[in-house]
């Protein structure tokens, strides 16, 4: 699924990859692929992640990983970093999710009573990136679907998600709700429908397999 999500990145894009699974997408980009990766703590042009013994103590991404620069990287302050996000300069963000609703609502920052560390930069990424994709397991550890008719958890942003990459499928989110567009090797359409807690439109045509 991570390799499939990497193909979502078009040449020339400015992209922010959220903490967790989305961060790994970068490992599946071709060498010399023309893209600018942004991290909200103040860097455009993220280079490879470094092990501790090669790390620069002053150079991390928003998830705290030690990263590097590439030729043409630039540093800036936190206000400029989010100016860039809010004014529409981010072509794509890929985020993790607790729940995604059929109308594109995203919940990924708070589980009342259990987990409430603060929203960080996620709300602005979700609300303002030109394209918001979610990268998540299709179900949670208890087997409950993360794809819902409506979110039950506090929202990160309304109607923002346009595409979901899971371990089972690629699903588009549009005016008619969820539409299955690709399916993982060895998974059946019936299994995806079963693991999705909302109506899922399945096209009549042959689905690509990833």
């Amino acid at each position, binding site marked *: 699924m991570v390799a499939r999500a990497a193909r979502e990145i078009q*040449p*020339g894009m*400015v992209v922010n990859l959220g903490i967790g699974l989305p961060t790994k997408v*970068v490992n599946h*980009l071709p060498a*010399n*692929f*023309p*893209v*600018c*990766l*942004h991290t909200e703590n103040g*860097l*455009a*042009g993220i*280079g490879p992640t470094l092990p501790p013994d090669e790390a620069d103590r002053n150079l991390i991404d928003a998830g705290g990983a030690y990263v590097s*620069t*590439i*030729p*043409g*990287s*630039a*540093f*800036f302050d936190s*206000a*400029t970093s*989010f*100016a*860039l*996000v*809010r*004014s*529409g*300069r981010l072509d794509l963000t890929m985020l993790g999710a607790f729940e995604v609703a059929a109308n594109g609502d995203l919940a990924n920052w708070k589980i009342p009573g259990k987990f409430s560390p603060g929203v960080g930069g996620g709300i602005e990424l979700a609300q*303002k990136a030109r394209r918001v994709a979610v990268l998540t397991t299709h179900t949670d550890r208890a087997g409950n679907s993360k794809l819902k008719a409506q979110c039950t958890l506090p929202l990160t942003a309304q109607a923002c998600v346009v595409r979901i990459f899971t371990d089972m499928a690629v699903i588009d989110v549009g005016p008619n709700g969820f539409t299955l567009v690709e399916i993982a090797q060895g998974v059946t359409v019936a299994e995806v429908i079963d693991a999705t807690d909302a109506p899922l439109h399945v096209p009549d045509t042959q689905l690509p397999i990833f």
Partner: protein
Amino acid sequence: MKLPDKQTSVEAAIAHVKDGDTVMLGGFGVPGTPFTLIHALVHHGARNLTIVKNDANEPNMGVDHLLQSGLVSRLITTHLGLNAHAIELMNSGQIKVEFNAQGILAERIRAGGAGLGGFLSDIGIGTELAEGKQVIEQGSKTYIVEPALRANVALLHAARADSFGNLAYVATARNFNPLMAMAADCVIAEAEAVLPLGGLAPDDVHTTGVFVDHVAALGALSKEYAVVQR
């Protein structure tokens, strides 16, 4: 991964300006004014433009060429004191002029670049500059609501750039350039030198290339860029 290449020519870049556009121009006096892009815009001939610039340069220099060419219907600025031509056009009604306090114009542009709707300021309260403006109470204070300002196109001048569009300015040629770089849908920078990627140190970049759509290298500088002899 490598960063995308945004190099183009002045002519190809300026073709993005359309009739009726709002166009921001960097510069405070001579320093930082994109004279070459302005010349190209006069030649391009897009009409009915709204121009946003700190000042109107001096007669027969920079933005004055645009004003005199009849392409400009409206000017948002802070001070025309050095350009009698511009004041004539304003007084005769040939261009509409909106004056802003200088720091308020800077801040409105930055707010546009920061994706905000506007900001609260007490500048001008009790003067005619506050007349007709929306006000809001916050706590015990009254503020003017100053709306954010964005443009279709921003034309900038940088001393150095790289092929990704990272920009560095020198001395007081910085002024409005980094703010306008944030605040337009299409951002075009002319640069005295366009360096290969890595030519600007990441800590010393003034405008990240993320904000810049097109960068064009200047050849020999025209005499408009030179020290003004008075």
